[in-house]
């Protein structure tokens, strides 16, 4: 038996000197990344995890906080409002964003102008843009004044502090996140395909339906995903322009923290985070989306 | 050459201005699961001052070999010695080897002057002398006055010259070039090939040049190492490789060759007599194949003639009956596809001339060629 084993142990002994000296150069990448990784762990990841742990260890290890959500009417209404708002906003962005993306890609001399119009609000803070909608939608705001002047209403209507105001402002804020990935996908379509389609007798509408739309689906998926996940976590805009009773999950969490109700706040946070991550995880499995998502995140 | 720093690789037995390079049983395997050897036992003696070209198809291991000489890849086994001294453990920046990269790798953020001065700066050459050496180097590649420009403001050919100037300004004794003309158009490539030869003569240093272009290799090199599948298929002068290929790969890769299946019938001195398509063909042969052995004979299309043509000296000895299957007029010459006996295809190239009769498809003819142009591979 020992004679059979010997060659293997011999080979091991021969190969050892090659691998044993520690090569410092191989550790350099990790040493470069380590300061930031440690920083992120200490000042960001561990705090968030410690907070989330309150949902399962307050006062002792338990899942009861999650169990109570099942018949928590406030939570369920809030969760429903949050999902509902996100879906509405995402659809709104898709309907408004697709034509602009096509306009951006098709435009020649106008393209830089269109890009600036898209990017300028993109670069402006959420707070300032929400404030702008407060100015526009208020009781004596421009929208009411315009509707009065046109004779469409007799007296000012309430828009500010309604769900509609939240939806309008959020669509405005999230629209660039929809436009840019779609424009990216449209730009990658080989123009000769479109020429080929019209050369084969396809009408512009058929070309759009059968060539452009299917080929831009990866961008549509990435934009929809990005918009939806960002919409889920919105806090500032609904708090500023939304109705006092139509609170979103983020607002409910903030309220609970104000009341030092940490266990409940942590439980809601875990649900919000899990929802966002679950959507990302599912969507990333779709062909093409992962890639488009990554390029548009740059 | 004051203040040029130490010549890192130059302390071995030195002869002439160029370094000698010895590759012994060089091997490279990338640590991927079941990866084939990229370089598989390459041994080469590159003489001082020689222009050696490594020629081969992509994936033949020529670039990997060059990268090991430069120090960017570590050999899995074997040794590399420059002037008799092993450099395997030496990092690339101490090897003192000039290198011209495939896409030139000029630093886009530096001017031409700063690019060419870069190796001098690394060696601590004082500014005034640096400027002088840079100007000389730019003169050498016919680009004086371009110092203040950025690489993007130059044409491809000019960028290539700057890359050469940068690689030789610190007077290395060895210059490596990785397909340096690959990205240029044909006309420019031919001009620069001549310039490379002139540069080699002027500098007198050793050049190791990698290319997949056989014409480039034949025009420029003192010797060519033909690479295939990580091995050296043959080393020799361009004439050696063209006229006396050692094996079928070299015969097929360099120039065009006809391969004739034959059976050995006997030997006369170092000439083998073999039967091919019913005719006895004589061929040069270094070994002594046994009678009855199946062999392949090779011959170049332009060395064949129709036997009824005009011959300057004694008519050649090898003859074969053929049928013309295709005739193409290609300007300076005519190219014929011929068929001998039961199916061996043969290509024949004949200089075009008003006095030579063109053959028609289907015509029967006899072709002839010299024994010296027939090799057993």
């Amino acid at each position, binding site marked *: 038996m020992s004679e059979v084993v010997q060659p293997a142990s011999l080979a091991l002994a021969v190969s050892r000197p090659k691998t044993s000296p520690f090569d410092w150069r191989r550790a350099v990448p990790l040493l470069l990344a380590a300061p930031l990784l440690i920083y992120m762990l200490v000042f960001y990841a561990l705090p968030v995890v410690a907070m989330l742990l309150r949902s399962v260890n307050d006062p002792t290890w338990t899942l009861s906080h999650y169990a109570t959500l099942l018949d928590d009417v406030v939570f369920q209404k809030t969760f429903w409002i949050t999902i509902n708002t996100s879906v509405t906003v995402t659809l709104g962005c898709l309907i408004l964003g697709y034509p602009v993306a096509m306009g951006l890609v098709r435009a020649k001399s106008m393209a830089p102008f269109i890009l600036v119009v898209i990017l300028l*609000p993109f670069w402006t803070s959420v707070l300032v843009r929400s404030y702008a909608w407060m*100015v526009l939608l208020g009781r004596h705001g421009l929208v009411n004044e315009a509707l009065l002047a046109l004779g469409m209403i007799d007296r000012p209507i309430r828009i500010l502090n309604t769900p509609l105001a939240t939806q309008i402002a959020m669509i405005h804020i999230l629209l660039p996140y929809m436009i840019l990935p779609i424009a990216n996908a449209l730009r990658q379509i080989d123009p000769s395909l479109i020429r080929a389609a019209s050369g084969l007798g396809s009408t512009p509408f058929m070309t759009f339906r059968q060539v452009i739309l299917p080929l831009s689906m990866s961008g549509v998926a990435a934009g929809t995903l990005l918009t939806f996940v960002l919409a889920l976590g919105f806090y500032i805009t609904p708090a500023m322009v939304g109705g006092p009773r139509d609170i979103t999950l983020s607002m409910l969490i903030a309220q609970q923290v104000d009341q030092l109700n940490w266990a409940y706040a942590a439980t809601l946070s875990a649900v919000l985070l899990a929802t*966002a991550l679950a959507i990302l995880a599912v969507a990333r499995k779709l062909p093409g989306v992962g890639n488009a998502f990554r390029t548009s995140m740059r | 050459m004051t203040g040029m*720093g130490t010549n890192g690789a130059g302390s071995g037995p030195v002869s002439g201005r160029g370094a000698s390079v010895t590759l012994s049983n060089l091997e490279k395997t990338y640590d991927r699961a079941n990866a084939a050897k990229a370089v598989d036992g390459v041994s080469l003696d590159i003489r001082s001052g020689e222009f050696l070209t490594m020629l081969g198809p992509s994936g033949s291991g020529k670039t990997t070999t060059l990268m090991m000489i430069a120090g960017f890849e570590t050999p899995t086994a074997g040794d590399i010695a420059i002037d008799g001294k092993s450099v395997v453990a030496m990092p690339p920046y101490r090897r003192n080897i000039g290198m011209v990269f495939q896409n030139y790798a000029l630093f886009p953020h530096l001017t031409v002057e700063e690019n060419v001065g870069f190796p001098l700066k690394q060696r601590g050459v004082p500014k005034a002398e640096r400027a002088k050496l840079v100007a000389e180097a730019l003169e050498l590649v016919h680009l004086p006055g371009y110092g203040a420009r950025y690489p993007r403001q130059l044409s491809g050919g000019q960028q290539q010259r700057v890359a050469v100037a940068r690689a030789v300004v610190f007077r290395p004794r060895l210059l490596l070039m990785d397909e340096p003309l690959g990205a240029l158009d044909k006309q420019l490539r031919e001009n620069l090939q001549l310039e490379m030869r002139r540069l080699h003569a002027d500098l007198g240093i050793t050049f190791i040049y990698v290319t997949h272009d056989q014409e480039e290799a034949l025009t420029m090199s003192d010797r060519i190492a033909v690479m295939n599948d990580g091995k050296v298929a043959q080393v020799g002068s361009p004439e050696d490789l063209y006229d006396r290929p050692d094996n079928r790969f070299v015969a097929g890769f360099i120039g065009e060759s006809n391969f004739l299946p034959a059976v050995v019938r006997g030997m006369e001195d170092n000439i083998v007599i073999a039967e091919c398509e019913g005719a006895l063909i004589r061929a040069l042969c270094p070994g002594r194949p046994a009678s009855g052995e199946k062999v392949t004979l090779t011959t170049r299309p332009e060395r064949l003639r129709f036997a009824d043509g005009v011959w300057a000296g004694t008519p050649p000895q090898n003859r074969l009956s053929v049928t013309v299957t295709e005739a193409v007029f290609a300007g300076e010459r005519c190219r014929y596809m011929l068929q001998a006996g039961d199916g061996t295809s043969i290509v024949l190239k004949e200089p075009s001339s008003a006095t030579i009769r063109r053959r028609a498809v289907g015509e029967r003819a006899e072709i002839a060629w010299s024994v010296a142009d027939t090799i057993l591979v």
Partner: protein
Amino acid sequence: MMLGRILPASIVGLILFFLAFPIVVVAIVSFSSATYLTFPPPAFGLRWYEAYFSNPDWLKPTWVSLWVAAAVVVLATFLGTLAALGIARLPKGLRIVAASLILSPLIVPGIVVAIGIYYAYARYGLVGTPIAMVLAHTCLAVPFVVTSVTASLSGIDPRLEQAALSLGATPGATFFQVTLPLIQPGVLVGALFAFITSFDELIVALFISGTGAVTLPRRMWDDLRFQIDPTIAAVSTLTIVLTAALMGAAHLLRKRAERNRTAISSAAA
């Protein structure tokens, strides 16, 4: 045929109007001479800019925001650039773990990050200090630095670094004389993003700025609770101009870096 062209163009025009108009309105209102919010303004003047520049309640938060953002730029750019250099060379498994941690603030809802940070920082008495703002904002700004530097690193031809080594530059000299100058536009773009991220950040500031480190967005938020005074329009316009200028600069830097690269490769091809 003409209608087919004009209709989509006018639809796109309307949507672009929807995007730009609210911001234009804020800018116009800021130059109003009226004491209350009305549109269009009865007359134009600079009174709300004067109100802003003469009120320490506005100027102090402005300085806090600028200092915090400046410190975030230094910290995030340094840590993020180092990490980007390292991550690019990490083995695949480790690279994915490291990138997920570093990029996660882009995905995790802001409120979750904010209350997590509040929860932990409060325990160590950091809430209400500018240091807490810098520490927290750096985490939010770092993803932008890392993505920007990584993108410019991946655009560098590895042969440039090989060329430097072959010309006698040590690995250190190669980094400082070749790699660093080449990724410099990416580092600058990342730094600009880091600045804007911190300067505009509100949610974390709501929880941890306390009374000791009130930032400009926090001050605006508090003010909006009570009144919609056109001073906010003036402040908003100033921040729009500042961020637009910085983002415009970042955009131009990136375009220029791209042009440099393509010019070289097209000349070589």
